[in-house]
């Protein structure tokens, strides 16, 4: 099968992931489509439990053992990730993709000094000798705005503040000059001022390195600030995808609209609204649109058939039957 080389660093097609639990099979991802262009920053937003983190971990194939990728394709740099051998995958993780987690406390090994952890990453990705790696990591840390970087390197994770720890995590992530950085809620555990600093840091690095970014978050404000494109996830599907400005200005999917209203980014800014209802039971998926039970506009087709992504204009796609009707209507 020939795949036309695209300009995307990452593309995910029809990805299905399930978790096997005591209480049955949980359908965490239900046909995800996503594209990240070279040098592009894409925000992945959605409520807790919508599968954002699962998607992030699927891309680097680090899902827990209870998870299984049932179907779908993931292309990184035009190569199929799911067909890679363990060693090839190791190489990709070593040199091309980095991952930052929500909780830097959990993401750093508690029993090793932070310096050793950065040095290890540098030794792996760039093949540096230990002495060179120590110099290099000190350099990276001071670049990230850490004064007395040599001293910080001597400390254990628990001796650092949350913001510092996240900087160390970023240092580890950046040590390899990745083509793609996947940041899973990198700031949600930090207080607001630190949050702004870290985000600014990530944006700046992106400008300097042409690295692509997949930013997982539930904060629409952060997406608006950092990203060019946004993908809205709901119950394991990307239900709306497009340029941030276009989507935020004119959200098409009822869920996106609701989400933006909650975030107070559109509509009358007077009172806080919330979307009625909860995510459907992911163990027993209904046949129709997964949002139909909460959707104020749902009609009979929504309950019967699951909508697929429809290209709205050249840059946007939406998975909603309302749109299909509109498109047809326009024709």
């Amino acid at each position: 099968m020939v795949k036309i080389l695209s300009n995307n660093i990452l593309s995910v097609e029809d990805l299905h992931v399930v978790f096997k639990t005591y209480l049955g099979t949980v359908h965490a991802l239900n046909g995800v489509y996503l594209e990240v262009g070279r040098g592009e920053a894409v925000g992945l937003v959605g409520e807790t439990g919508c599968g954002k983190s699962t998607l992030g971990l699927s891309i680097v194939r680090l899902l827990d053992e209870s998870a299984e990728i049932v179907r779908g394709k993931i292309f990184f740099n035009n190569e199929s990730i799911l067909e890679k051998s363990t060693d090839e995958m190791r190489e990709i993780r070593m040199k091309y993709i980095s991952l930052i987690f929500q909780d830097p406390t959990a993401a750093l090994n508690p029993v090793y000094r932070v310096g050793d952890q950065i040095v290890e990453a540098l030794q792996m990705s760039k093949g540096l000798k230990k002495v060179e790696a120590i110099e290099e990591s000190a350099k990276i840390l001071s670049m990230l705005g850490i004064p007395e970087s040599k001293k910080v390197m001597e400390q254990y994770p628990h001796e650092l503040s949350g913001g510092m720890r996240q900087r160390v995590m970023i240092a580890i992530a950046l040590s390899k000059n990745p083509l793609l950085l996947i940041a899973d809620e990198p700031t949600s555990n930090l207080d607001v001022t630190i949050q702004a600093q870290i985000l600014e840091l990530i944006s700046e690095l992106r400008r300097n390195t042409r690295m692509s970014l997949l930013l997982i978050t539930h904060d629409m404000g952060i997406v608006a600030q950092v990203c060019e494109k946004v993908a809205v996830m709901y119950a394991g599907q990307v239900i709306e995808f497009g340029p941030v400005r276009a989507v935020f200005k004119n959200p098409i999917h009822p869920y996106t609209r609701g989400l933006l209203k909650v975030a107070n980014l559109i509509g009358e800014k007077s009172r806080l609204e919330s979307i009625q209802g909860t995510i459907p039971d992911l163990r027993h998926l209904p046949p129709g649109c997964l949002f139909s039970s909460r959707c104020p506009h749902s009609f009979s087709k929504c309950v019967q058939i699951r909508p697929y992504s429809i290209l709205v204009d050249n840059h946007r796609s939406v998975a909603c039957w309302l749109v299909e009707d509109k498109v047809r209507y326009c024709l």
Partner: protein
Amino acid sequence: MGLLYYILKRIFFGILVIFGVLTLTFLITKIIPQNPVAVWLGLEGMQYPELVKQVTELWKLDRPIWEQYIYYVGNVLRGDFGRSSWSRGPVIADLAARFPATVELSIFAFLIAMSIAIPTGILSAVYRDKPIDHFSRILSVVGISGPSFWWGIIFLYIFYLQLGFAGSGRIGEGMSPPITVTGFYLIDSLIEGRLDKFIDVLSHIFLPALTLGIGATGFTSRLTRSALLEVLRKDYIKTARMKGLRERVVIYRHALRNALIAPVTYMGLLFGSMLGGSVFVETVFTWRGMGQYIVTAIFASDYPALLATTLVIAIIYSVANIIVDLLYTVIDPRVRVG
């Protein structure tokens, strides 16, 4: 600074607990429904009021209870645990011979248990749901579920009675015990330079040690397995994998040290289970240690011996716990601040 403070605090606390233990044993001597003077003098001796009075005063049993307590603590601190009402000699003399026997057996059992349990636990976690995992899990859970004295009997039957391995005692009947330096036969035989004795002692200690450690082995193996599996799900393991490290390096450098924190926290408890289990295992293997001494004391109604031995075992255990806690600070840097 923080580390030193922690160590001193831990030692102080340990001493406090030992005093608590002393107090508890003292209280037990007070509620024993038996007159120590009567035990000591026997029915005949009790007929002489002069003698009774003399002994009562000698042991300060006529003084108020707090004075008796101070007297008791003072005696114990001097190593005077009273006289065995059965052998009539000082208990400390009996214990001196038996103390190394039990400690040697317990330490050896502990080492065997750990050197079996930790590798099998790791293998079990790494090859999860593979045959080796099932095998070691079944073995662990069955091992835990049987009483040690029963396993001892089974081992005796198979290895001693059927296969002719060394069965009971600390050393073969034809051999004289090594010259006492430390009291540990394994060490003393080496000091004496008698390799044949060393091997003989080793062959004698192996079965009882295996028996004594069987519960701890099963427990630790399960604990290591679940701790390692738990750690392997952590984010920092994902971070390590994102560095492109080989699976072996991820497990042995990043996961194992964190996973071993769990068994290390239980090591004190496990060593304690060896000391406690010695009561059964020493009885089954006629191992002349403190555990067997306790059982003998029970059958002879020898309260001073029983109390003193229990107290000494509790003190050894407290000291072992302090050592384990200090070891813990080495393996887990997070403890050093708190």
